[in-house]
């Protein structure tokens, strides 16, 4: 391929897009709606997932440390705790004094002065540990217990199991919904492309009769398909960005109490947007480009 033929292909794809603007517009709209649905469900499941994760982070395991340990020993224990697999986060060391204060603070009507009265603090120092996979809680607790200098480990395995199974289910359902939507979109988009090409069957036949090779006919269609896919992806991305930002901004202003609590978990678009962008762009290029190439094949027999 020469430079001028590449320039021709790129121009011809665009010309054809404009010349068949009604069909192009229909294709763009159909694909855009598909992208919107997929994008919305991706955002939805990502947020549910994020929400559940943050709930899980609140499920902490208390690791009690031998009160005899010096600072060096405490630092060593902290390191060892952190190096255990699935341990996501190890909090700062909570001294027996701080432990007691927070315990008293948690008791209703508790008074800080009360702690001064207790000369013999019965509480050991502790680390608060959170883990990434709640279904592993039992095993991790066993491992934590085996770290030298640890005297006791406490955590609620029942709660952990429940949270873990909820999250698994939600992840699975999110995946299922996105997959179903992707398949439906693929079928709809494929049919739109098929229709577009059927619409131009005669044109393709004429091209063949004046001596165009299949590649020469096919490539502008593929490029046109890619243009359509990218435009649809771009529009859908812009719309989702706008709607999501609006939702985030609105949630900050208008909500309170429980609702605010939920909305405060909204993942910022900057954090997740690029994933959606990559997903859309790849979808736009592959579905439209390869779809066009595939459906034009059957009209290239004459």
């Amino acid at each position: 391929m020469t430079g001028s033929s590449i320039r021709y292909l790129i121009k011809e794809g665009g010309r054809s897009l404009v010349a068949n603007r009604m069909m192009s517009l229909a294709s763009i709209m159909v694909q855009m709606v598909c992208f919107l649905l997929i994008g919305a469900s991706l955002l939805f499941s990502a947020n549910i997932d994020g929400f559940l994760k943050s709930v899980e982070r609140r499920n902490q395991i208390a690791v009690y440390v031998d009160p005899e340990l010096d600072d060096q020993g405490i630092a060593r224990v902290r390191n060892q705790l952190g190096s255990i697999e699935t341990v996501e986060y190890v909090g700062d060391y909570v001294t027996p004094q701080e432990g007691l204060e927070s315990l008293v603070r948690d008791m209703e009507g508790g008074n800080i002065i009360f702690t001064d009265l207790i000369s013999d603090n019965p509480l050991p120092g502790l680390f608060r540990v959170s883990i990434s996979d709640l279904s592993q809680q039992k095993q991790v607790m066993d491992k934590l217990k085996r770290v030298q200098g640890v005297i006791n480990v406490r955590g609620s395995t029942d709660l952990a199991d429940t949270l873990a199974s909820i999250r698994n289910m939600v992840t699975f359902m999110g995946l299922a919904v996105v997959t179903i939507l992707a398949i439906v979109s693929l079928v709809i988009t494929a049919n739109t492309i098929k229709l577009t090409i059927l619409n131009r069957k005669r044109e393709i036949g004429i091209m063949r009769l004046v001596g165009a090779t299949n590649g020469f006919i096919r490539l502008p269609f593929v490029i046109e398909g890619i243009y359509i896919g990218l435009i649809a992806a771009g529009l859908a991305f812009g719309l989702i960005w706008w709607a999501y930002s609006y939702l985030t901004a609105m949630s900050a202003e208008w909500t309170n109490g429980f609702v605010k609590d939920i909305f405060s978990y909204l993942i910022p678009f900057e954090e997740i947007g690029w994933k959606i962008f990559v997903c859309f762009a790849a979808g736009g290029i592959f579905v439209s480009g390869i779809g066009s190439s595939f459906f034009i094949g059957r009209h290239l027999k004459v």
Partner: protein
Amino acid sequence: MIKFVNVNKVYPNGTSGLENVNLSIEDGEFVFVVGDSGSGKSTLVKLILTEERHTSGRIYVNDYDLSRIKNRHIPALRRTMGVVFQDFRLIPTMNVYDNVAFALRVTNIPSREIKKRVPYILNLVGLEAKSKAMPTQISGGEQQRVALARALANNPMLLLADEPTGNIDPNLTFEIMELLIEINHAAKTTVLVVTHEQDMVSHFNKRIITINKGRIVSDAPAQKKRRTGLIHSADPAPVSALAEPNAIRRRTVYDW
């Protein structure tokens, strides 16, 4: 050069298109093929173009053996000929200029040369003023001239015209025929014109092949006498210019 040896064409539904056809057309000849509607004239053109494939026998066109030609060589075969159809077959979404340029683009000619060649050819058929018009915005006669320009664009060895005057103003019939004859004279292009207007062709002193019910029933060579004064091109000069050395010669085929 076109050669048919015992050619039969049976369409998939069982209809017979051509039966035991034998004919030979030399390079540079001008031939009329006449016959009633449904006699098999278009079938003949389609077989030459490999738009339809023959059922049995052998066909040779411009050094290609159509019984053996591979699919990937068909574009190259088609570039050795230009075709004008009764229904024009212009690409509806391309303007006049692009329709003509398309026949050149498929051969991968540099765009520099296309930019010179297309206006030149459009000028020959008298349509340079309409180069930006879409096919739907011009008359049938003009569309047919665009189709002719496209057929001539890469200076083909063979020009096929299937009822080129069937869909245009009858007054223009002689004008178009005259143009085709001039192309044959000037560029030494082999020209095969298919028509059902048997009276019309008798005005020209050309070889006439008559088909009836898929069989060749007569093949009358041109008389040796000069052309009658009946047909007179108003200005044959521009068409003669087709033979000018500048015109793009056939080149090695570039397959993608």
